[in-house]
């Protein structure tokens, strides 16, 4: 009985993609999902704070005054495209194609850099030209903390993926580097999920209310 279960498990694992083939890799990917669940809760608290404080503008600029749909759509579409190219990099990983994996991951971080550039420009415009820095009102504190936390995550993701690209270049696709590349992909898609809610709950809601 025990024997049968064991051999079934082993058979399963050998059929799996490379990143799941070791017990350690399998468990670490599970652990990463738990980390992402905790990140969801972190962003949940920031969304809760922002939504309550949204109307507390202290006589300063409101969401409607500040937000412009053009740059926001550009950021949204670029991050969405980067999530797509990141998905393509996972496919190349499954094909054990090192060049394809590195190529699509590079495109992903380039799009990530463009996104960060647009977001930094947006923050700069608000804080310097529109008289709406973080300290102006509770609304702006909530806004900059929520979007800043997301932007910091994207920036960290770019640095992390560059590190993984260096390892992939050096060591090739092994069970360890495959696991790291797969986890970085999960992280990147997760950041796009958070942005979908920022787009909806912050920008679109700000334009409607």
């Amino acid at each position, binding site marked *: 009985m025990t024997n049968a279960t064991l051999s079934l498990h082993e058979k399963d694992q050998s059929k799996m993609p490379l990143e799941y083939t070791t017990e350690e890799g399998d468990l670490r990917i599970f652990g990463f999902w738990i980390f992402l669940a905790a990140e*969801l809760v972190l962003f949940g608290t920031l*969304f809760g704070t922002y939504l309550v404080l949204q109307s507390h503008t202290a006589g300063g600029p409101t969401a409607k005054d500040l937000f412009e749909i053009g740059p926001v759509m550009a950021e949204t579409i670029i991050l*969405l495209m980067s999530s797509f190219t990141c*998905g*393509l990099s996972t496919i190349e990983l499954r094909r054990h194609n090192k060049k394809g994996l590195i190529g699509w991951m590079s495109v992903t971080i380039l799009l990530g850099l463009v996104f960060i550039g647009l977001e930094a420009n947006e923050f700069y415009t608000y804080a310097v030209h529109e008289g709406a820095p973080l300290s102006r009102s509770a609304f702006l504190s909530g806004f900059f903390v929520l979007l800043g936390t997301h932007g910091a995550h994207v920036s960290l993701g770019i640095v992390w993926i560059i590190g993984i690209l260096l390892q992939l270049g050096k060591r090739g696709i092994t069970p360890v580097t495959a696991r790291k590349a797969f986890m970085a992909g*999960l992280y990147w898609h997760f950041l796009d999920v958070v942005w979908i809610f920022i787009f909806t709950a912050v920008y679109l809601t700000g334009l409607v209310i």
Partner: protein
Amino acid sequence: MDENQKQMSERMGAGFPWKQVIGLLLSLALTFLALWIAVGLSLPVPVTLTIIVGLAIFQAFIQLFLFMHVTEGTEPVHQLIGILFGIYVAFAIVGGTLWILAYAL
């Protein structure tokens, strides 16, 4: 690469990346649909908010299932339970905060 491995990698990633392309097109369509509903239509505010939040949740699930392979792994039910619990706590925090502090909105 031995024959076995070759077969495996072919099975894993052969052909056109349909899942990713469908995920991208659906996400783009949902994004523009939400924009149009919010800016183009002038529905009552609660109706608009309900629809766009619903579209966002749908798009998040597209990412989760088409891009993030949440159903993969040796025992995917464990990570599904973990992520569902995270979603539950996040919604409880956001919903609960808005409910309790509704007077302050």
